[in-house]
């Protein structure tokens, strides 16, 4: 079998040699035969005749030889292909419209599919990726839905959950890497020793971390990513054992990961051991997760998720028995949930992506319907030709294969153009920050995608051929010849088919438009929400101080000199620092204990946003002061323990009393009296997680001296556009310490805009899709109506000759368009209602059936469709009876 295919392809590849060889061989045969016959005494003339007779027709022999190689099928195909190409060239308007429609529809589908494929379909790049799980603690009744896992969880569970083959923890971070003078801030992941084992993919060279390397005295080792190794060490094979400075501490390189290693969405360059102190692993720290540490696990090959979940639940229950805080934890609804890793990672974007995929499929459907309609119209123009050919003996098989070749040629060419559009579309999506989607960095236009696209194009071509072939074969040749020769109207059923296609198009375009409108309106509603501070003219940037160079006292001094310097710069209205700026992406909450607050039955501890502030942070952000005073720079230098809370916090704990002067402790337990903070001010609430955050969890602002973190955000209010201040901000920090970089420099306006990307990009894309859908629908409507006018030229001419006014003709066609439009809109309304219900989770303060949106969508659809009808209608009204009646 293989040999024959090989010989066929060789013949195909050297087709000219094949043909030449065949001719030469036969010529040789004929000449030899003639020579032999002449030699045996025959006259030359007779010899020639005899040879010809014996060999038969040379053309037939050649045909049989080609058939012996299977070449005839290709010859036939090529003939049909060139015929189809000739037909398409003859109607450039139709061909261009069809190709453009296909290019846009395929392109849009490829683009969105590339995203879906990367985010939702392609498995994670690890062995048996569907067995990877993540486990996190949740305290839903305390308003904390996701709290990561604690070190304690890890050490208590490790090796004790039978359903899990392996369990490990990791923690994302950013560290300053490099020698003094050439440092850079890099993303890192701190991992437990079994992390790579859990994933099933470890270093390409070197080894993984050991259990001995999990204390702060012994953790001076690092594993590098392949990219970092190539870029920093020029892929030096002897990198193992070399020193690398991380946060000013030298570490030994012990491994390099393979190029394929990509853990979820992180761009981490350096992996470090997750070191901890023994006391942090104690049972009392079990609920100290705070979303800092995340847990992953690999299920045993024969275990199920439910088994793992029930074993974890059982262990939790057993451990909580002797927990002093057991009651509070139980009241908070505590559970540790086991969730598939990948699904969990992409859960937030899944509905949006599915919605976009649905939208783009609808677009493809509209394009397809449009094309079938145009093809049908085209086919009806050729009914006569085909009838003649059928009458002359062309078989149905031949006619069908001709149609299939033609439509497939069309869709294949459209598919090729679509590849270009898709490649451009993916570039365009990059502009919409698609890379920042979970697993978004894997989105790429590759060969596999291109082949999928072309395969889809071919399938579509074959599907298109079905209605066209059916239309052509269904009528009796004799009838076709007669009816067309009289120039009467076309078949009734074909007309119904065309019209219902138009109705479907209008309905689908309407649904897309209504969906886009709902998304747009949601975006508008979200953007109208106040973040709780004045976001304009504020520049923020993150500063990370290594603990080795900056112990507590050093940090305080650094903050003081930084805020002093910034506040004295020209153009700076006020400047401050905060441990976590709103819209930073970090939404960790922590507990506080209020003096004198007795929990109501069923009430659990609440997580609050807790900040450390220094300098003039409140003025820089323009918070509103409800009572008391703001914290000032001096509060960090004084030993007095004071704090400021927001109005949600005050309202929750003291609904009827004044919050000023009340006492609270940082943490989930009441401490000594001397450690209590006195509330000195109440400020307005601020959105931390995003504009749509609606749970008023309360916030506490401590002086920086009492709440020191790894990094701070600098916030500067400027009189000039804030972006122009970025270089100055970096310069000021570098003046204090040249090795401390400022990262993530963005204005507050930009942070808010970036936080809306998950709403804006889908709304923009949906708007774009519905624009194309409207364009396609108008093309389709125009095409069908033009055809109807052409078909009925004679009828119109006769009627006008008998006294019909052009106005009547115009009304007749306008009425037809209105009928189609009404039917389409009614169907569209039903569809839009269902669509709105399906996308409810993506809407914000917009009902699934918004009258304004539907009215606007109906208006736009009507305007576009009627505009498309205008030209053909006008042409109908201007038909001259004389021309029509004499023309034929």
């Amino acid at each position, binding site marked *: 079998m293989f*040999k024959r295919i090989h010989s066929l392809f060789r013949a195909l590849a050297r087709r000219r040699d094949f043909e030449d*060889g065949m001719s*030469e061989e036969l010529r040789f045969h004929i000449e030899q035969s003639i020579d032999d016959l002449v030699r045996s005494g025959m006259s030359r003339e007779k010899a020639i005749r005899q040879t010809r007779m014996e060999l038969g*027709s040379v053309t037939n022999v050649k045909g*049989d*030889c080609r058939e*012996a190689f299977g070449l005839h099928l290709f010859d036939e195909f090529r003939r049909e292909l060139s015929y189809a190409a000739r037909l398409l060239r003859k109607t450039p308007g139709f061909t261009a419209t069809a190709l453009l429609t296909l290019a846009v529809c395929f392109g849009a589908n490829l683009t969105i599919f590339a995203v879906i494929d990367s985010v939702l379909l392609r498995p994670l790049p690890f062995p048996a990726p569907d067995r990877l799980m993540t486990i996190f603690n949740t305290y839903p009744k305390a308003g904390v839905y996701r709290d990561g896992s604690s070190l304690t969880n890890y050490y208590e569970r490790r090796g004790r959950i039978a359903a899990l083959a392996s369990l490990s923890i990791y923690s994302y971070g950013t560290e300053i890497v490099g020698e003094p003078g050439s440092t850079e801030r890099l993303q890192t992941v701190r991992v437990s020793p079994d992390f790579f084992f859990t994933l099933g993919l470890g270093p390409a060279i070197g080894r993984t971390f050991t259990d001995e390397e999990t204390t702060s005295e012994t953790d001076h080792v690092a594993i590098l990513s392949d990219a970092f190794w190539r870029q920093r060490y020029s892929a030096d094979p002897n990198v193992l054992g070399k020193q690398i400075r991380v946060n000013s501490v030298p570490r030994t390189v012990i491994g390099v990961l393979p190029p394929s290693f990509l853990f979820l969405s992180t761009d981490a360059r350096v992996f470090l051991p997750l070191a901890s102190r023994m006391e942090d692993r104690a049972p009392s720290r079990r609920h100290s997760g705070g979303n800092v540490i995340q847990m992953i696990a690999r299920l045993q090959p024969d275990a199920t998720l439910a088994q793992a979940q029930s074993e974890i639940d059982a262990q939790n229950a057993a451990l909580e028995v002797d927990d002093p805080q057991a009651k509070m934890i139980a009241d908070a609804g505590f559970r540790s949930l086991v969730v598939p890793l990948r699904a969990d990672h992409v859960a937030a974007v899944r509905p949006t992506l599915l919605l976009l995929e649905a939208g783009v499929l609808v677009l493809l459907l509209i394009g397809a319907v449009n094309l079938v309609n145009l093809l049908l119209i085209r086919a009806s123009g050729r009914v006569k030709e085909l009838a003649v050919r059928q009458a002359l003996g062309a078989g149905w098989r031949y006619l069908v294969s001709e149609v299939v070749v033609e439509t497939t040629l069309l869709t294949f060419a459209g598919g090729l153009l679509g590849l270009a559009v898709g490649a451009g579309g993916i570039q365009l999506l990059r502009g919409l920050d698609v890379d920042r989607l979970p697993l978004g960095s894997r989105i790429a236009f590759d060969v596999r995608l291109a082949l999928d696209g072309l395969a889809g194009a071919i399938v579509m071509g074959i599907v298109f051929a079905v209605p066209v072939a059916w239309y052509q074969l269904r009528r009796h040749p004799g009838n076709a010849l007669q009816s067309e020769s009289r120039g009467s109207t076309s078949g009734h059923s074909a007309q119904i088919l065309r019209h219902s296609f138009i109705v479907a198009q209008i309905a689908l375009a309407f649904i897309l438009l209504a969906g886009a409108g709902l998304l747009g309106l949601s975006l508008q509603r979200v953007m109208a929400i106040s973040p709780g501070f004045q976001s304009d003219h504020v520049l923020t940037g993150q500063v990370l101080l290594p603990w080795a160079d900056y112990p507590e006292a050093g940090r305080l001094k650094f903050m003081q000199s930084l805020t002093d310097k910034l506040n004295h710069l020209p153009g700076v209205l006020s400047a401050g620092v905060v441990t976590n700026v709103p819209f930073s992406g970090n939404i960790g909450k922590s507990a506080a204990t209020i003096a004198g607050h007795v929990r109501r039955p069923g009430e659990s501890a609440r997580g609050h946003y807790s900040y450390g502030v220094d300098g003039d942070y409140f003025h820089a952000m323009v918070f509103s002061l409800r009572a008391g005073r703001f914290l000032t720079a001096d509060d960090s230098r004084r030993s007095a323990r004071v704090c400021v809370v927001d109005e949600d916090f005050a309202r929750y704990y003291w609904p009827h009393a004044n919050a000023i002067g009340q006492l609270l402790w940082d943490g989930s337990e009441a401490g000594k009296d001397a450690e209590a903070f006195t509330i000195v001010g109440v400020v307005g609430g601020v959105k931390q997680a995003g504009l749509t955050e609606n749970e008023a969890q309360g916030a506490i602002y401590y002086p920086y001296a009492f709440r020191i973190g790894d990094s701070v955000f600098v916030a500067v209010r400027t009189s000039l556009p804030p972006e122009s201040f970025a270089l100055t901000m970096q310069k000021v920090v570098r003046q204090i310490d040249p090795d401390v970089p400022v990262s993530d420099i963005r204005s507050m306006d930009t942070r808010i805009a970036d936080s809306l990307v998950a709403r804006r990009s889908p709304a923009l894309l949906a708007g774009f899709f519905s624009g194309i859908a409207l364009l396609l629908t108008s093309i389709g409507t125009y095409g069908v109506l033009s055809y109807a006018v052409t078909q009925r030229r004679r009828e119109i001419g006769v009627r006008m000759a008998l006294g019909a006014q052009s106005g009547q003709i115009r009304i007749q066609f306008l009425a037809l368009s209105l009928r189609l439009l009404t039917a389409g809109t009614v169907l569209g309304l039903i569809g839009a209602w269902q669509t709105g219900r399906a996308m409810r989770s993506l809407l914000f303060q917009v009902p699934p059936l918004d009258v304004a949106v539907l009215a606007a969508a109906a208006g736009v659809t009507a305007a576009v469709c009627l505009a498309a009808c205008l030209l053909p209608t006008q042409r109908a009204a201007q038909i001259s009876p004389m021309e029509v009646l004499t023309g034929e």
Partner: protein
Amino acid sequence: MDKTAELLPGTLDMLILKAVSLKSLHGYGVLQRIRQISGNALEIPQGSLYPALYRLEHQGLITAEWGQSENNRRAKYYTLTAAGRRHLRDETASWNRLASAIAAAMNTTSEEV
């Protein structure tokens, strides 16, 4: 060539294989060789000769190569491949079985029944 027999269907391939098994031949040579070895007793349909050669080449039973003919013309020479040799052996064996069975059947006299 006054008394020639029509070829049975399917036997042309076998005869071609036999012809080229003795020596590499060009198409016209195959025709002559079959005539020669059959003692000019077979009517060779020349129109089927070349398609048969191409079919056998396509099946990998013979290979073709360009060479010089006796009178110094360029000609395509066919040679039997290993697969062709095996095929020919099988065909020959089954033909012989068939031929002798039919011959035995046709020679039966009434006494032998």
